[in-house]
């Protein structure tokens, strides 16, 4: 199972919706300083609930919403699946009748993934989305979606942990972090192994 596609909507330096397809194997991302490369990594961490706002260089979650558009919400969707294998996830998706507006949008994201121009996304077998909405005076809301349905962070974490995606699995090494393993104490380093033993 791999990442088939990432959809970044109004998140950090991405104003409006950007779809980034991914392939198997070894992909690099490059470009000038400040262009948005690390923000793509932040989008993955945000969507999969793998970080805090500080880890994504934000003081609070609403700082992650693009500051150029008037829209005060951001949405990121990550679609997983196997390359070269057709999945039949339609059975997982609930009927539209019982969805709220936001769930409808997440549902549409799943359908877009499945019917989009990218052939590989029709194989999506796990689609995770997360939305952050700034409600002004009344604070903010952060909502996760698992295959188009509202889910708790715990449900998302459990599903991802089954595929060895979790903070303890070192899936993501962030900019400036590479020597962290050397600088930590021997006890902290041993605990890395505890988590997976």
């Amino acid at each position, binding site marked *: 199972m791999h990442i088939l596609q990432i959809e970044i909507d109004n998140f950090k*330096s991405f104003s409006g919706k950007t779809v980034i397809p991914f392939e*198997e194997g*070894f992909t690099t991302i*490059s470009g000038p300083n*400040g262009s948005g490369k690390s923000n793509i990594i932040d989008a993955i961490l945000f969507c999969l609930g793998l970080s805090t706002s500080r880890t994504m260089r934000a003081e609070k979650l609403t700082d992650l919403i693009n500051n*150029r558009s008037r829209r005060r919400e951001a949405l990121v969707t990550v679609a997983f699946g196997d390359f070269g294998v057709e999945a039949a996830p339609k059975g997982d998706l609930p009927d539209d009748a019982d969805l709220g507006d936001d769930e409808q949008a997440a549902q549409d994201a799943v359908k877009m993934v499945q019917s989009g121009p990218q052939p590989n996304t029709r194989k999506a077998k796990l689609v995770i989305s997360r939305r952050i909405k700034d409600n002004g005076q009344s604070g903010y809301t952060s909502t996760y979606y698992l295959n188009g349905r509202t889910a708790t962070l715990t449900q998302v974490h459990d599903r991802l942990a089954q595929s*060895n995606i979790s903070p303890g699995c070192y899936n*993501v090494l962030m900019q400036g972090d590479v*020597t962290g393993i050397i600088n930590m104490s*021997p006890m902290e380093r041993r605990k890395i192994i505890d988590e997976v033993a």
Partner: protein
Amino acid sequence: KRDHFNKAFEAIDEHFRGIFAELSDGEGQLLLTNPLDPLSGGLTIQAKPRGKKTLRLESMSGGEKSLTALAFVFAFQRYLPAPFYAFDEVDMFLDGVNAEKLAAMVRKQADNTQFIVVSLRKPMIESSERTIGVTQKQDGITKVTGVLLKHAS
């Protein structure tokens, strides 16, 4: 519980030795500070580049620390494979020779798993199968400019 730990530790140590030798042209291994009661002690890394004495971990250079840390991460990844890995500029301390070695190792690891690597370094970009270009115009809005496909070499 201790058995589970020991089993995991020995497997990861095994991977680490091979990967460290390949990346750094030296010998390295993982060590428990308390082998008889691992969970009461810590985990340290013994690294010995060819010709040098065993290096104290904190006295290593920026490049040496990077390679040692990455060898640990790769060993961990071989023990517990995941669907994808994302690295953001992990090659910034490496000289040209080591950047090439790292790129070759990522390419090898990517046979079985998906690697998404942010990098500004030529060896890393040239070893990858494709590059996603990211830019910004004068308006500060990120634009993904498409995928540069490479010939398989």
